[in-house]
Every structure is written in C-alpha cells, then in structure tokens.
C-alpha cells in the first residue's frame, strides 16, 4: 500500500528523466529497483533489491567519474550505506531467529512473542540501518557529498525517492511488522528528527553550493517526516490511536510533498548549473531576467519548501504542528513540555528554511549577474521546462486538494498502524479540513488561496484605480556614491552572516584573510573567506578512521618479511594450542 505513495516519486522520476537527452538505462533500473524495494514481500528479497538499489545509485553517483570529488562522494556513499545494510541484515536475522520466517506477514504475526530486549535491539539496528540511508544526523555524512555529484535528475530521484525508501523501511519494519510497544522508541526517533531538522537547515544556510544546499535540506525534511513518524509511534505506544494515525498522515504527506518540491528544486538547480556551468551561488544572480521560467518554478518550489501558504509544504508542516499540539493536549507532564519544544523546534526550522530559500532564490536569480557566465545564461530547453512545469502543477495541486489526499493517506496510515480508521473523521465539509469535530480548528488552503487572490486583486485595483501612476525606471539609489555594480550586492556569505555568528557555538566558523600589499599604506588586493567546521566529520568520523588506520598500521608490522619469524608464528601457534587445549 505505501508503494502507492512512491508512485508519485516514480512519475517525477520519469519526467526528470525526460529532462536530459541521454535516457540512461541505469536510471531506469534504479527506479525499478526502488519499486522492487517497496513491493518486496520477504526480508531476503528486500535485502537483495535494497543492495541492488544502493549499487545502482552508486553507479549513478559515480557517473561522471572523471571528476575527483564524484569518486570520493561515491566512495563515502557506498561505504556508509553498506554499513547500514550490515545493521539491517543483523536486524532481519534476529527477526528470523525468533519468527523462523522471512515473510513479512509471518514475522508480523510472531513478532509480539519476541522478548523485549531483543525487540529493542532489532529496533536500534533497524533505526541505524535505515537511518543511514535516510541521512538522519549524525549518519547524514554521505548525503551532501553524494547528492550534488549525481546528474541533477538523478539527484532529484535520490533525494526525492531513494531516501524515502528508508522511511518506508522504518514504517514497514518498525511500525507495521515489529509493532511499537514502548514509548522511548518514538521519543528517540523524535529527538533524532529534531536534531536532523536543525542541523540540516543550519548547514544548508551556510552552504553556497546550490545543490549541496538542497542536499542539506533533504536532511532537514527527512527530519520533519520523521517527526510525524516518531510521534505516530509515540502516540501508538500511548494508545492514542487517533493521533497515531493523524501524525503518520502528517509524516506521509510531507514525504510526498518533499518528493515533489525537492525534485522541482533539484531540476531547477540542474538547469541553472547547465546554463552557467557552476554551482557556486556567489557567481550567479540576475538569472530571473535571462531564464524566467526556471526562476518562476524555482520560486514556487522555494515557497513550497519553506512552508508558505497555499502550497503543499504549508499543509504538511501545519499538520505536523497540529499533531504536536494535539499530542501535547492529550499527553501529560514532561511529555507536554517535550512536545512543545518539538513544535518550537519545527517552527524554528521553518523560519530558518524560509531564510535559507530567500537567500537561495534571491542570490541566485535576483539583482545583477555576479559573473560573465551568469550574464549570458540561456533559458533551459523546453523538455526541462516541461518537467519542472509538471512538478510545479503537482506542488499547487497537493497544496489545494489536501482533503482527498488526506483521505487516501488515512487509509495508508491506518493500514500501517493496523488501526481501524472507519470511526475517525479527518475532514468536515467539502474543502475544509479539521482534526476533531469537538475542537474545531480549521484549515482550508483553498479558502486561503481564494482570499489571497481576492485581496491581491483588490490591491492591484487600488494601485491602478485612480489616475495612472507615473512610473520611472532609474538606477538603484547609491547615496550619491559612484555607480553601483554587482560587486556592491549583498553576497550569500553576507546574507548568512548573522546566522553564522548566531550558531557559532556549533559551526565553529573561521576566516582566512590574505593581504597582498605593495607598501605599508597601500594594500594591493585583499581576499577574505570564511568557512565553517563540519562538526560530525571533524569530531566523530575522522578520529574513528584515524583509529582504524592506526590499528591496521600496527597490524602491518606482523608481516615484516622475515621467514624465520613466520616459522616462529607456526611454532608458537602449535605450542599455545597444545597448552590451552583444555580450553577448547
């Protein structure tokens, strides 16, 4: 049933594949494998197609293998995902041990019989395994490398669909098969999700590489999705059946939405990349004049992802927030506070995301071009426009037609949580959407859009009503300064500076300045760049790797090439075996 959700993703995949002219087989197989993943019926088959999916995506990431960094990216990606798979295997085997079967249904029927410690273990394994693929912090390390390196339509598929298969895995195996029975699972996932949201969006703010920025936003959005999922698990264990279903709906809804608008954004970024041949935002600008369509669609996507009404991102974020609120209402004690803070974190994320996309759109498309390439950029070919257009339409539809979609998702969620949803109403009359009849808090994107249109029209009317205003164009006000050019513009770095300072406790920003001076008084050129320290990479992964390599290096010394020593090994082995024979 959840595969229904992904079909949306596949559609997108198809369109985005129409985007580039070489219609590569790998991409197609990739899609097929993802379809296989979400339709697999037993764990072994699941494992196989799961690995196949990783393998194919690896090939796709390394597609342009002449570039050094794409090889590195693919390396990191495949290694991380393989580690994840090892955990998944362990989890499956534990399940098999206690259920004696690989078929989902059988495991499901027997899973309550597992002893609790084992269940917890399986949960942890599954979480780590799928979390690696989904890219929840701190396992997200591969994501900002791999996504930007793949060709853009592939990035849109990876970020739009592939990491969702991990969410599918979590829903399928933890909620559906394992069945949630303790509270802390949900809470753990919630905590991780909150961290992912914030970390993802903060890093995104710091990023000047358009596609990397989007990749970090994938981390953030995965976080938001997991907020829904985690809450659903929490409420399920608290036996708040209605809320369990509701928050799962919220999660799934955001899942679809993210697939859509993130796809759209990646395509937009792709066509920008194609147009000016760089992903560095500092070299862009003014593109809205040269490539209006791309700009328009990108704007749409940006508004959707920052949760502005009346687009789809708005609806799902609103649902998630409501889920938090109602959870707070129905829970007690510290949990109230926890959920409140969660809601606050979500709101914070929303705000930061908005800021981030103001930056992304504003710096990329607005004002004057910051480089030659940006000046003579060309609009993308029709096929690209078409692909983006379709996704843009989807963005609007999923914003306005929330009610029927929610009805469908209710079925899915009900199935996943195996809760009977017949007696639950998720909507009132035709286009108004509410939670519980008792406590009506309504939302109708339709009406809001309507209102916006009406008043917008009113404003326009007011503008043009009286005698035609005399409008004159002139260069930007420069305080009587000499003529402004693109070098006076606000840069992406400048834009994100307040945030960089605000989160310096976490980002550890550092600057590199370099002066080339002719004389003491006259500085010839002055270069200034700031960077932020990737915390998890620097303080977790690199030391770990260092440790491993050190041990390996020590091991290397056991093989110094001396035959006498080698014979000595044999001798010692025999001796020790004979001495400790009793032990075996």
């Amino acid at each position, binding site marked *: 049933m959840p595969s229904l959700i992904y079909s949306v993703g596949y559609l997108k995949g198809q369109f985005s594949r129409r985007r580039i002219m070489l219609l590569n087989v790998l991409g197609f197989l990739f899609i097929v494998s993802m379809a296989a993943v979400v339709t697999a019926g037993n764990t*072994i088959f699941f494992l196989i197609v799961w690995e196949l999916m990783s393998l194919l995506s690896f090939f796709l990431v*390394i597609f342009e293998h002449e570039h050094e960094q794409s090889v590195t990216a693919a390396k990191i990606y495949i*290694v991380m995902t393989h*580690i994840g798979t090892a955990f998944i295997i362990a989890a499956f085997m534990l399940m098999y041990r206690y259920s004696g079967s690989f078929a989902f249904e059988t495991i499901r029927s027997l899973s309550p019989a597992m002893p609790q410690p084992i269940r917890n273990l399986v949960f942890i394994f599954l979480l780590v395994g799928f979390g690696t693929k989904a890219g929840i912090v701190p396992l997200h390390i591969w994501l900002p490398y791999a996504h930007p390196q793949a060709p853009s339509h592939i990035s849109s598929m990876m970020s739009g669909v592939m990491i969702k298969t991990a969410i599918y895995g979590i829903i399928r195996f933890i909620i559906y098969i394992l069945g949630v029975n303790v509270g802390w699972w949900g809470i753990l996932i919630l905590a991780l999700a909150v961290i992912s949201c914030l970390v993802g969006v903060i890093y995104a703010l710091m990023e000047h590489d358009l596609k990397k920025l989007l990749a970090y936003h994938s981390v953030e959005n995965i976080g938001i999705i997991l907020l829904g999922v985690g809450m659903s698990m929490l409420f399920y264990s608290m036996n708040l059946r209605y809320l369990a279903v509701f928050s799962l709906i919220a999660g799934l809804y955001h899942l679809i939405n993210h697939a859509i608008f993130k796809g759209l954004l990646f395509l937009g970024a792709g066509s920008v990349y194609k147009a000016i041949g760089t992903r560095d935002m500092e070299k862009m600008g003014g593109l809205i004049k040269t490539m209006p369509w791309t700009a328009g669609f990108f704007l749409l996507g940006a508004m959707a992802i920052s949760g502005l009404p009346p687009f789809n991102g708005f609806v799902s974020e609103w649902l998630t927030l409501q889920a938090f609120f109602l959870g707070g209402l129905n829970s007690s004690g510290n949990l109230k506070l926890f959920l409140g803070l969660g809601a606050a974190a979500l709101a914070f994320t929303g705000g930061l995301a908005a800021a981030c996309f103001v930056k992304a759109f504003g710096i990329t498309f607005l004002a004057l071009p910051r480089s030659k390439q940006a000046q003579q950029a060309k609009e993308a070919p029709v096929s690209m426009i078409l692909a983006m257009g379709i996704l843009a339409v989807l963005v609007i539809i999923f914003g306005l037609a929330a009610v029927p979609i929610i009805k469908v998702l209710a079925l899915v969620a009900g199935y996943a949580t195996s809760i009977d949803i017949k007696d639950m109403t998720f909507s009132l009359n035709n286009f108004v959407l509410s939670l519980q009849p008792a406590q009506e808090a309504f939302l109708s994107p339709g009406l809001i859009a309507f209102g916006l249109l009406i008043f917008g029209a009113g404003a326009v009317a007011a503008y043009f009503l009286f005698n035609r205003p005399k409008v004159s164009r002139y260069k930007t006000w420069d305080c009587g300064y000499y003529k402004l050019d693109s070098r006076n513009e606000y840069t992406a770095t400048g834009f994100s500076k307040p945030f960089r300072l605000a989160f310096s406790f976490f980002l550890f920003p550092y600057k590199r300045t370099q002066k080339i001076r002719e004389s003491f008084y006259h500085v010839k050129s002055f270069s200034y760049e700031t960077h932020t320290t990737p915390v998890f990479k620097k303080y977790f992964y690199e030391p770990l790797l260092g440790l491993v390599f050190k041990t390996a290096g020590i091991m*290397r010394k056991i093989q110094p090439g001396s035959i006498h020593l*080698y014979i000595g*090994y*044999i001798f010692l082995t025999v001796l020790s075996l004979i001495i400790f024979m009793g032990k*075996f």
Partner: protein
Amino acid sequence: MIFLAVLIIPVVLSLIILMVKRARALAIIHSLGYAAILLVSLVLLYRTTVLAEPVVISDLFLLDGLSLFFVLVISLVGFASSMYSIGYISQDVQDGRFSSSKARMYYLLFNFFLLSMYLVVSLNNLGFVWVCIEMTTLVSALLVGFYRTKQSVEAAWKYIIICSVGIILALLGIILFSYAMSLAGGPKSLNWTDLFAMAGKLDKNILKIAFIFILVGYGTKAGLAPMHTWLPDAHSQAVAPISALLSGVLLKTAVYAIIRFGLVVNKGLGSSEYFSHLMVGFGLVSLAVAAGLILVQKDLKRLLAYSSIEHIGVISVGLGIGGPIASLGVLLHVLNHALTKSLMFFGAGNIVKRYDRHNMRMIHGVIQSMPFTGILFLLGTFAITGFPPFSIFMSELLIIIAGFLKGSYVVIGFLLFFLVVVFSAIINHFSPMLFGRAPKDLPKYSEPLSEKLAFLFLLALVVGLSIALPWLVRDGIIAAGEILKGI
C-alpha cells in the same frame, strides 16, 4: 570408473605437450582437455548427489559427494584459467618475458599441479593425501618462482619452506591418528574410511592433540592466520592464472583435508564443540588480520591475496558454526570464492600487465583505458565484497543465518564487522584505481578472445548461481547436510 578420466587426461595432456610443437595449438588442446574434465566431473557429482548412486570406495579412492564437489571446483577453475592462459602466456612469450620452450614447461607444470590436486581430493589413504599435498606445494612453488625475478624467487622460497614445515606437522598429526587407531586395535591402515569407522573408539585426548597438528599443518596451507604469511607473497608473485589456481583451489584442497579430519574428530569426540571452537577462533583471527592488512595495502595482487585469507576465514567460521545451512553456505562459498577470485586475479593480471606496476596508487582510469577488463573487474569487486546479485552474497548470508540460528551472535557480529571493514577498504582502494582519467602514454591493448571468454564464463557462473539459488536452496541444504554430515 569414469573418474579415472579426470586423472588420465592431465597425464595425456602433458604427453601431448611434450610432443606438440606449435604453442597455440598446444594451448587450445590444453583448454579443451580441461573442458572435458569439467564435463566428467559434472557428471560424477550429478550421479553421486542427485542420482544418489553408491559412493566409490576402494583402498585407493574415496569419491563421496565431498570429494566430487571439490573435484568440480578444481575443474571449473582449472578450465577457466587454462582458457585464460592461452592469451596470457602467448602474450608473455611475445613480450619476451620468457621463451616459448619455457611456456611448454609452464603447461607441463600446470598439468602436474592440477593432477596432484585432483589426487588430494580423491584419494582415500591419508598418507597419500599428505604426499600429494606436499606435491602441490613443490609444483606450485616452481610456478610461483616462474618469472625468475628476485621477488618471485624469494616468494617461492618462503612458500615452500613455510608450507613444508606446516605439512610436516600435519604428518605428525596423521601419525598420531594412526597411533590412536593402533591403540584402539584397528587395522594398520591410514584409509580415511577405516579411520572414520573406528572414530568412536579412538582415544579422545590423542584425537585432540592430533587434530591440533592437523589444523596447524593444513591450516598453513589453507592460509589461516597466523600461518598465512606465505600466502600474499606467493599469490602476488605467481603467474596470473596460477595465482587464480592458488587462491581459488589450492587453499580449498587444504580445507578439504581439514574437513576430512574434522569429521573424524567430531565423530570421535561425540560433539562438534572442540572442532567448532578451533575453527571459529582461527576464522575470526584470519578475518581480523585480513581486514587490517587490506586497509593499508598498496599492492594490487597482495590485496587480493589477503582477501582470499579473509574468505578462508569466512569458510572456517562457517565450518565452525556447522549444521546443514552452514554446510551449504560453506560449500557454496568455496565454489563462489574460487570463481570470483579467479575472475579478480585474471583482471588484476591484465591490469598489471597493462600498467606494468603493482602499486594501486599508481594506477588510474582502468575503466577508461581497458573498458572490458575494467568493467568486469568492477563487477568482480562488488561480487567479492558480497553484493547481490553475485553469489558470494548468498553464501555469506547462509552462513550468517546459520550463525544466528545457532545463537552465536558475537561471532556473527564480528564477522559482519570485518566484512564491512574489508568492503570499505577494498572500495577505498579500487575506486580511484578503476575510475578517473587514464594516463595518456599507455600502449594500446585489447584482451584476446580467449581471455574475454574466460571472464564471461566465470561471471556467468557467479551471477547464475545466485539467481538459481533460491530455487535450489532447499535441496541444496539437504544435499550439503548429507555431504558434510557431522560438521
């Protein structure tokens, strides 16, 4: 007694080699001969396992499922590498690495090598088995030192000395077994069948000691750490097809011998505890050593050698775990590793010959410069590291499943951990080597047809096995349980 064909054909071939002058014809006849052997051994295995015909047991031969399975493995790899040799050796001769008469010598040794291995897995008398294993050492030592470079001679020396020491310990073990026999009043024979029959009555203490010697001795040959030290040297210096044979088959014959004695020991001690503890211990140690050394490895062929150690480790862990599922896993792993590793060694052979260096850091853009080899090597990489749809994934999965069913979580945990480490290391080493831009100044090169055929043959088997497995798995488990009953 169609099995005799398997033994006779190599002899005939070597005679032919002595007579035929034209190198090319000779090579082709050679590989045809091995195709024939392959067919015969297929038929044999089919008849004993599937048709369940009575097992051939004489004072000389013992051809139960186990032996025939190993015969099949040997034949497969033998065939592939004989085919690969056609192109490879002829090129070496053209490049003047050695003379054509020396090439004949090569084929001669090749035949002796395989003959001795066939004898190892088919003989009944353990003493003769021992002799044949020593033979394999001697013959392959000549093949390791074939290039007459400093390194190759050094490698051969280490190989022959270390293995002989090990082997002599194994002989001591055998003698202790026979002593146990004589104590139990058994016949004064070294036939495995008699030994197995008597196993129940043997003195447990002596059995244990004896098995230690056997394990260390044949373990040296099988490349179990810490007796593995000869292996990377020998593998990295041998002629490429021979490297394939060494790590694909030779190690497995030693494993075969260990299995034989293991069966006796288990029967004698009445429980598989002792055996399984030892095997798991050695397996994990080998895995650890392999993982660590692969991480810091620079030399392509040495890396492959260490990965052989790793897989031997997996196999012995599988043996330690035991039970029908694990047995199937082990047998399949023996087969899969033989095939995949040969594929890898062929690929490595081409790469090394093309770039004329072993150091991976110095090699770039293989896929660009030699697409066929490059792609197959890439696939082989994923196969050897246990990715589906390649068959090693299946066998490892089977072993892991068995382990979980047995409840030995710690062991499997370590196994998984080391597998992941090895995978990461190999990817880390190979991706810069395979991808990226190739240097401009390479001589142009295209793989001869025979090599391509060999590659595709192996790849087809590797993929086919894994695809076919889900349908065969049930019968497979039963059959394997029969073959390795008591492990």
